[in-house]
Every structure is written in C-alpha cells, then in structure tokens.
C-alpha cells in the first residue's frame, strides 16, 4: 500500500500552494493562513514519507504532534502582532506593500 | 461489513464536498458558518465509521473531542464576528 507516498505528494502540493499564496498576498491574515497551509503540507510529508512502506512510525508522529502545538502558538502570536498593528496603524499589511492584492 | 463502512465514509466525504459549495456561495456569513458547523457533525460520523472499518477504537476518542469542540468556532463566530448587520439578516 502506497497511501503514505500519496499523502506525502499531496503534502508537497499543499506546501507549494501555500508558498504561492504566501508570496502573493500582502494582507497579513492571508499570509498567516498560507503559512499554516504550508505547515500542514510539511506535516503530511513527514508522516506520509515515513510510512510509505505501510509500516507505522511513531517518531514522526511525535515530532508532528509537537509541531502542531507549536504552529498554533505561533499562529496566535502572529495574529496578536497583526491585530496590534491594525489597532495602531489601521492597516493589515506591512509598510511598503499595497493594500489590495 | 468493512466495505460497507468505507463506502458510507466515501459517501459522507462526497457530502462534505457538496456542502463546500454552500460555504463558497452562501449569501450570508451565517449560512457559511452553519455549513462549516455541519461538517463537524459529518466528521464525527466519518470518524465513527472509520473506527469500525479500520478497527482502531481510539478513533472514537477523536470523534468525542470533535463533537465537544466543534461548537467552539460557532460560538466564536456569534460572539465576535456576527454584529447583526442589516445585510446579514434575511
């Protein structure tokens, strides 16, 4: 069964999709979303690749478990920074980048 | 029996894909939120089916956590996003 490899390749596609969105958008909330999608793609690659032979590998499971929790705390912190920027400047983009894109 | 469970799970996944259209189209924000809420319920059903099909009883715990926490997003929506704007009330 090659379900693991299948999910790993899905993860690669998700990562690149997220990367495209991350470069493309100037709005910080969209960047945070794109960054999370990239992270999910990475996790899929890690777990899927480790068990492409059909054998379950607990080591990447543990690493990705830590990764998920770190990702949510990083997301929360990024959101708070963005909201503080919005409170102080009224914009949701970094200075020097255009609003609409 | 296992085949039946998997077939049902596939059917529910198709339902999720159909429900996505409501999120994409849904005229008001509340329509979209309710569609997402519906996916929580569908997800619980899929998890319970897979718990039987793959013989992994731990998936029932996942379904339990899912059922408990799925309402959180809706509560956040009602309390923090939905300001009763005139456009959103049909």
């Amino acid at each position: 069964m090659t379900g693991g490899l299948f999910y790993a390749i899905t993860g690669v596609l998700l990562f690149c999709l997220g990367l495209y969105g991350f470069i493309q958008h100037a709005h910080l909330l969209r960047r945070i979303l794109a960054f999370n999608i990239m992270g999910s793609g990475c996790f899929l690659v890690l777990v899927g690749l480790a068990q492409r032979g059909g054998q379950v590998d607990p080591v990447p499971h543990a690493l990705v478990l830590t990764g998920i929790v770190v990702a949510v705390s990083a997301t929360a912190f990024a959101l708070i920074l963005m909201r503080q920027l919005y409170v102080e400047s009224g914009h949701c983009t970094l200075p020097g980048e255009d609003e609409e894109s | 029996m296992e085949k039946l469970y998997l077939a049902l799970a596939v059917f529910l996944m198709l339902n999720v894909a159909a429900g996505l259209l409501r999120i994409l189209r849904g005229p008001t924000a509340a329509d979209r939120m309710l569609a997402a809420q519906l996916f929580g319920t569908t997800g619980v059903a899929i998890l319970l089916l897979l718990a039987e099909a793959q013989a992994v009883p731990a998936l029932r715990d996942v379904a339990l956590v899912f059922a408990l926490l799925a309402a959180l997003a809706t509560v956040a929506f009602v309390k923090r996003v939905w300001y009763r704007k005139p456009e959103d009330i049909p």
Partner: protein
Amino acid sequence: MTRTLIALLCLGLAGMLGWALWQLPGDVGLKSDLQSELQGQVQADIVGLPALVAAHLDQSGVRHPVTAVLLNFRAYDTLLEIGVLLLAVLGVLAVRHAAAPEPVHPQRAGAVLAALVHLAVPLMVLVAGYLLWAGAHQPGGAFQAGAVLAGAGVLLRLSGRLPALLPPGFWLRAGLLLGFAVFLVIALGVTRGGHELLAYPVQQAGGLILAIEASLTLSIGLILVSLFVGAPSPPEHGGEASE
C-alpha cells in the same frame, strides 16, 4: 507578469519535490519483488526507527509508542517545545504591556450559550483528564488534553465568565510556568542519580512521565487560553460595525 512567474516557480518547485519523493528508495509498493525485498532489508538496517522504538518500549515506562517517544526517547524536543510556548506567551505579554489598557466590556451570555457552557465545560475537563490518563497506553496525552482544556477556557471566555486574566497574577504565572519547571526539575534531578540528562531510571520512568504530563497539561491549557485572551480587543467591541 510577476504573478505568472511566481506561479511557474512554485509549480516547478512542486514538480521537483514530488519527483524527489517519488525517487526515494524504500518505496516498497512500487518496485519489483526482488528490489522491494532488498530495500526492505536496507530500510531495516539503516533507518529502523519503528523497530528501535518497539524494542525499547518496555523500558520507557509507558505502553503507547508515541508517548514514549515524546516524553522519554525524544524528551529533549518536548522540553524545548514547552519553552517555545512560554516564549509565545512572553511575546503576547510584551505586546500587551505596550498597548493601552483595555476598557472593560460587559458581556452577557444568552440562555443557549449559558446552557452550552454548563453542559460542555465539565465534559471538556472530564475528557481532558481521560485523555491524560489514556496517553500511557493508547492515543492521547498531555498535548491533546491541554488543547481540550484550553477549549474549555476559550468557551468560558467567549461566554464572558472568564476575566481578562492579563496582566497575570501570581497564580497564573505559576500555572504557566509549572509544566516547564517540573520538566526541568525532573530532567536535572535524574542527573543527580548518575543518569544522563532526561534519561529516567527505568523503575520510576512511568511515575515521572505521569508527573510531567499532568503538569504539562495544565500549563499547555493555560498557555493556549492566555494566547486567546491576550489579543488586543477592537476599539468598540460589541458595538455596531461602522466605517
């Protein structure tokens, strides 16, 4: 124009990465029988992480391999991970310190929400306890339990029953630090007994892991709730949206 270029570059990256994954050895399902046998051997000899974990599972003090990896074999990662979570909270506190003090918004919970809170919060706490206990022998553990606990906290906050919490008082600070502190004390404590850092003695491993996990659950729950509560609130929260 740039947009097309970026899209093409990302597509190229996807193709390259996908091709690299496809070419990696050890993909038993796609090769001929002989090759797959050979590669199965190579995989067992060189990587063999699942086999290693399985071989040492009975020395880890728990019966669930993922928990064993998280809190025993690779406990270093988990120690640093709770450190990262604390750093995120520190960052939030720093931002909040710079911000203007928040006006108090009286929030009312409607009848439905109040009923939901009454029903769901005790269940969430119960499920968190169950997941913590279950982590020793089946899927579950400190992270999942902490996340469920944080869900209960967020629900309480949304229904207006949890005060703003920030700046944190003594007990909240202690709770935030508890997981990291207990972990660190145990990690250093075992070095006194002649073991290496984080290498628990086999007999006490189960008890030590349970102590770490219980304090981690509480701390992770509190940290995640603080990350939710610490967000700066909009200028006129709850009022009519206006341009």
